[in-house]
């Protein structure tokens, strides 16, 4: 065959036409089921895989397409899909620190179904769902709107968890030094005794070198500080979405926190996310205590094998005698997209995934995550002794504190607030490291105000605010 431009262009043309035709004829990437669910957590994915067959059996003709999607991908894909009116799943899980960012804009534009009425609806088998769940857990998934001076809360997600925080400590080391850690009920007591223990352990280290720290605390990231801030009823935002990270509680917490991670009285060392390093921390007795939300205790069990039988849990020391003995860190919500044409079915699956007592107990055994549904806390699985945690009944320990878990109020600017808080920690640590307590409180106040003002400035950029 003669083709004037030559054989090579002819071959390219044939290949282009063939591949184009192939693409056109290939079936579009359709979901393998008729109810699509995204989750970003591997442990959730594995737990839901066990629940889905029961749901499908109870709903003939329904096929659930459960997908494991990376957390960042959930956020970016969802944001793009909501903005462009593209395909979204029927329901999905999103992480607490990005959930709030989806609540920006007019109510009608938010891509998630408002669950407020559904959660408050009386149920034939008892009180509404809203009454059966730890109330503070709705805070991160709630957007408060004020119309004509009347504030109304709109809940856009089912809480997957409570994530109470306990204190994990090296029971073997504390006991070897004659210390009953559980008797240390306030932070003052804990730090006084803990500093003594640190001194004893470091006595044999070369001069100027510290080989044992009391507790895992970051000097650059807001993650640990926020746990202690929540414990004091502080936070990043007020319930109405106004900024609270420069209020008195935040200033006092920062002033208390920074000397723990820098300076002569330092007791903290950052933990990070490298499990090989955490293993080393445990093998070398480098860190003695950890702030331990329930989900993190599950990671510890699986990843830091060296802690088995050595670590134990106790309630967080209180700020004042008789005060709150817990805090919270992290969280996940299940949202239902407005675009889904089968909300009822999705809602049924959501209830089964989140509020079925037996399946949540099974999930607890897999992940250590305490369900937010109070009824599930009585399940025998939560009372089982856990060999990793010195045979303590892990579920009961977390459940005992769950109702006292503080709320984490959110805003579409929550990510920015966390960034700004982390930056403030760095500057405060730098100041304290160089100048000590001299003028420190004034500096902290000024620095936190600077962070808060920057967020306010970003908020003002939005003409709707």
């Amino acid at each position, binding site marked *: 065959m003669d083709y004037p431009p030559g054989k090579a262009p002819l071959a390219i043309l044939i290949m282009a036409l063939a591949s184009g035709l192939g693409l056109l004829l290939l079936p579009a990437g359709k979901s393998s089921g008729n109810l699509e669910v995204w989750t970003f957590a591997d442990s959730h994915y594995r737990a839901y895989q066990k629940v889905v067959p029961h749901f499908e059996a109870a709903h003939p003709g329904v096929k659930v397409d459960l997908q494991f999607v990376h957390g960042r991908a959930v956020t970016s894909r969802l944001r793009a899909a909501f903005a462009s009116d593209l395909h979204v799943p029927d329901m999905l899980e999103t992480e607490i620190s990005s959930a709030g960012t989806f609540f920006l804009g007019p109510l009608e*534009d938010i891509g998630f179904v408002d669950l407020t009425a559904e959660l408050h609806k009386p149920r034939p088998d008892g009180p509404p769902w809203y009454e059966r769940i730890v109330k503070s857990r709705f805070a991160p998934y709630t957007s408060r709107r004020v119309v004509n001076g009347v504030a109304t809360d709109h809940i856009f997600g089912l809480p997957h968890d409570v994530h109470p925080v306990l204190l994990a400590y090296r029971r073997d080391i504390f006991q070897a030094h004659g210390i009953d850690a559980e008797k240390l009920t306030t932070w003052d007591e804990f730090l006084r005794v803990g500093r003594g223990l640190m001194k004893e352990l470091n006595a044999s280290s070369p001069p100027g070198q510290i080989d044992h720290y009391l507790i895992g605390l970051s000097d650059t990231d807001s993650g640990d500080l926020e746990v202690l801030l929540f414990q004091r009823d502080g936070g990043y935002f007020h319930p109405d979405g106004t900024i609270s990270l420069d209020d008195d509680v935040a200033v006092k917490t920062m002033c208390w926190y920074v000397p723990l991670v820098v300076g002569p009285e330092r007791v903290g060392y950052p933990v*990070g996310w490298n499990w090989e390093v955490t293993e080393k921390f445990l093998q070398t007795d480098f860190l003695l205590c950890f702030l331990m939300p329930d989900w993190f205790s599950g990671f510890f069990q699986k990843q830091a094998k060296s802690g088995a039988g050595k670590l134990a849990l106790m309630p967080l020391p209180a700020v004042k005698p008789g005060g709150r003995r817990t805090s919270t860190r992290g969280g996940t919500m299940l949202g239902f997209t407005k675009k889904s044409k089968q909300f009822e079915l999705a809602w049924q699956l959501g209830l089964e995934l989140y509020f079925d007592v037996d399946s949540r107990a099974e999930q607890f055994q897999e992940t250590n995550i305490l369900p937010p549904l109070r009824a599930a806390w009585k399940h025998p699985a939560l009372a089982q002794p856990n060999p990793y945690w010195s045979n303590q009944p892990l579920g009961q320990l977390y459940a005992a504190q769950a109702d006292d878990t503080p709320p984490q109020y959110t805003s579409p600017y929550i990510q920015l607030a966390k960034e700004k808080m982390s930056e403030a920690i760095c500057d405060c640590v730098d100041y304290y490291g160089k100048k000590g307590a001299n003028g420190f409180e004034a500096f902290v106040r000024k620095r936190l105000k600077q962070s808060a003002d920057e967020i306010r400035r970003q908020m003002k*950029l939005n003409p709707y605010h």
Partner: protein
Amino acid sequence: MSGTVQGEQSARFSLWRQQQRLAPYIFVSPFLILFCTFGIYPIVKSFYLAFNTTNGPRSVVFTGLDNFRFLLHDPDFYTAVYNTATFAFFSVFLQLPLSLALALLLNARWLKGRNTFRFVFFSPYLVGQVFVGVLASVVFVPRFGLVPRFLHATLAANLDIKLLGNPALVMPALVGTALWMYVGLNCIYFLAALQAVDRELYEAAAVDGANAWQQFVHITAPAIKPVALVVVIMSTLGSFQLFELPFVMMNGPGPNKAGLTIVMYLYQRGFDIGNLGYASTIGWTLALMVLLISLAQVRISGAMRGNA
């Protein structure tokens, strides 16, 4: 009968001529369609968004130059520009001499196992920024990481040195990691240029009494100048697009934004906070900066060519 045959032949000829006329358009159409959909449309849309504020997924309001005004007073943006420029500066001015030195070494005839060395130095580039970032985040771990252990053993540095946790040390750690990754790549460019230099020139120069330095200045340097310019332009532009390496190494901008780059800032504002309008403004400003830098470099390279 013959009329029918002639008619058929004429129709086939006309079809043939028509397809010859259309063929170029058919060839370029796949590219054009894809380019318009994934290139032109996003560019136009982002230009539109740069002058608007997005409020949630659907509401967009025209705010004129507000985003640009905000940008001019945005300390985070200046931090990102400063970090990116610092990285670009050190990347170029450390990478170039190191790559060239390595290339000269690998070009030496007395060196045995040259091909192995070339592969070894080039291989970090093959694995990509994400893998290098993961690796770096492990070797920089205080107390237990390879680098702190090495620094402690050789320079008696503090074992707890936080190369990715101390704002002052983040940039050196980033530049060092980028050096490890890109020196081998740039070395290959220089090596190709060096191998193109006529050996007889060196022999003639040696006969004339030129020492090694004089040979480098008067023969090697002029010969590799065009390649050096390409490497400078590529390194600078690549540095201004830096994102994955610090993002993976520090899981974000690092302590006190010490690793925040312009592209990372764009990503944060667009996808973490959801302000696509402001993210577009950052994108267009970056495009303008890159354009100006490229123009300056093209101008300088033109002047240098003129001088050569």
